């Protein structure tokens, strides 16, 4: 009988094994090797493009050829701040973003509430799909559809015609309707998630303590769901602020996005400077949202 002296063969030192041993011994290096690619992406592609944007806003352009002249100047910022039209456009865009956000919040809350707390599981699934469905369609198609809906021969004016009314669809109001439609799912989903997370026991406790349904809603549901509404509003606000396609399709009025789009070819530095306006507004908005604990319900 052969003795049990057959020793385990020593692990073969192939390169893969050596590498894994190396990384096992150097755990910090392992961490960096894993993070290098995504970090490089974030730093170079993500923040890098922002830095290039910032730098571009410091260049000037040749008045004739409109080529970028690489001499640092603050002229673009002076132009943006001192020219009436840029201030008007920025203010108009922010107002639109606020109006769209408010409208979406008002529309989304009852729908989300019904989905989360009233509907049967079956209905709920159907509703979730129904809310998501518009997102499967191409954004441009939806914009063009609204262009038709709002036009003089469109369905809105067709319905108003017998009443002797007329609706000027190619206006701020028409654009507001379009944006409100486009971004509604982005509001419903976070609010729905937020409402669903409120434990049933809270509502029961409120009832046990003598709270009527309205009191329960105002003092329990609303405060708990508010961060979710703020989370949704980040989407609707930011998306409206930066959009340039819908305004171009629906109205002749200028918004931040359309101005940047229109002047980018001939006045790139001014466009770059102007594009910092929504960035500043959004950062301010996010700071407020953080104060309102919105990020906890994302």
């Amino acid at each position: 009988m052969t003795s049990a002296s057959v020793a385990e063969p020593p692990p073969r030192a192939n390169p893969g094994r050596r590498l894994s041993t190396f990384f096992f011994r150097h755990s910090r290096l392992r961490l960096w090797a894993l993070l290098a690619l995504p970090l490089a992406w974030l730093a170079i592609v993500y923040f890098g493009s922002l830095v290039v944007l910032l730098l571009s806003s410091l260049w000037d352009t040749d008045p004739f050829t409109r080529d970028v002249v690489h001499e640092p100047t603050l002229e673009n910022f002076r132009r943006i701040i001192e020219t009436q039209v840029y201030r008007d456009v920025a203010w108009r865009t922010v107002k639109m973003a606020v109006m769209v956000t408010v409208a979406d919040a008002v529309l989304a809350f009852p729908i989300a509430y019904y989905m989360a707390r009233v509907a049967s599981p079956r209905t709920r699934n159907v509703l979730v799909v129904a809310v998501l469905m518009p997102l499967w369609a191409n954004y441009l198609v939806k914009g063009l559809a609204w262009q038709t809906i709002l036009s003089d021969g469109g369905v809105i004016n067709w319905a108003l015609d017998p009443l002797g009314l007329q609706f000027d669809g190619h206006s701020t109001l028409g654009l507001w309707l379009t944006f409100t439609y486009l971004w509604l799912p982005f509001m419903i989903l976070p609010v729905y998630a937020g409402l669903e997370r409120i434990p049933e026991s809270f509502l029961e406790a409120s009832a046990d303590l003598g709270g009527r349904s309205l009191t329960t809603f105002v003092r329990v549901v609303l405060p708990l769901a508010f961060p979710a509404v703020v989370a949704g509003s980040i989407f609707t606000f930011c998306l409206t602020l930066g959009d340039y396609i819908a305004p171009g399709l629906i109205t002749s009025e200028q918004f931040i996005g359309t101005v940047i789009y229109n002047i980018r070819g001939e006045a790139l530095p001014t466009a770059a400077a102007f594009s910092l306006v929504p960035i500043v507004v959004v950062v301010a908005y996010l700071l407020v949202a953080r104060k309102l604990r919105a990020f906890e319900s994302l």
Partner: protein
Amino acid sequence: MKARKVRVARWAALGLLVGALSVVAAGCGGGDGGGGASTEIEGLGTSLEEIQTLARDEGEVNVVQWAGYAQLVDEFTAATGCKVNTKDGASSDDMISLIETGAYDGVSASGNASVRLMTTGQVAPINTDFIPNYADVQEGIKNKDYNSLDGQPYGVPHGRGPNYLMFRNDIVPADTNSWNVIWDDAELSKYKGKISIYDDSIFIADAAVYLKATQPDLNITNPYELDDTQFQAAVDLLKKQAAAGVNYWPGDVAKQISEYTNGDSVVGTTWPYQYVQLTAADPPVAVTALKPAEGTTGWSDTWMIYSKAANPNCMYLWMNHMISPEAQAAVAEGFGEAPVNLKACEVTKNANHCADYHADDESWWEDIYYWTTPVADCGDDRGAVCKTQEDWEAAWTEIKG
């Protein structure tokens, strides 16, 4: 203490990144200014035969064009082996941006792009020996400011046309023959919200054309050479029009076509292309397009070759193709413009096309002011007091409000 070190290191890293990127950014746009008059492009054959051989190896040509310009593309590909990829530009500025990407071999440039492209050296002068059809181009269109520099031709003329006044026959009186339908107070209140306007700063010249005819005391001689007073008058007129409510159509012609079709726009300015499309639609839209009594702006376009074209041989053959009688006829009828090679008149489907579009009638073109780049030099004894391209663009953003 450690936290502080980390923070310092973080800021240092960010600083390095910003520094590195600014070097990259500064290095990029530098470019080599000034176009020499050399027709040589790297890789271009030295004879027509060699160009034809090399073109087969290139196998493709990428061009920036006004919508609808490239014609008889399949025939061209069959004859030369060059596949044609087109990209529509929406405005002259748009076209310049596209050429500057370096991804294209050539462009159909209007005067307000071509002058800038020649000055910056983005396009190369051409050797007409390699473009046999060049000899057939109308002499009156060769060697103009917008297609040559110091007597050296840059590119081949493509065709010319007016910016029309177009209106729907069911809304606007049939005998309309004046731009006042889009400028006059009484008319503005009639058509407010339904006026279709080209969305580009060059449209300021259209206001100037109207002022030139209606306000002689402004002394406007050329709608692209506007001093302070003249420019302000044009801008005020445009602001009044914008306040009445207009629909801007960017170079994307589909928007204007759909607006005229569904009645959202009833009067405005257009290219012949949209008129041809609307009247040829099924069912046709009843519109009229004409050159009003005051005259109008227009364009005379030129196919130019990018000075660092990747497929210069195919591009030379393409330029030759676009001024062949057959392609010229197809362009003239497809876009609704006058050919520059009059041999095309014998092969147009409509035998009267050249007469209808006044191809050979120089007097008809006298009150059409071709697009060009506004510069400070007024071109007369006023000196360098005229508004520049930069002023025009800033004013255009302001007019739209």
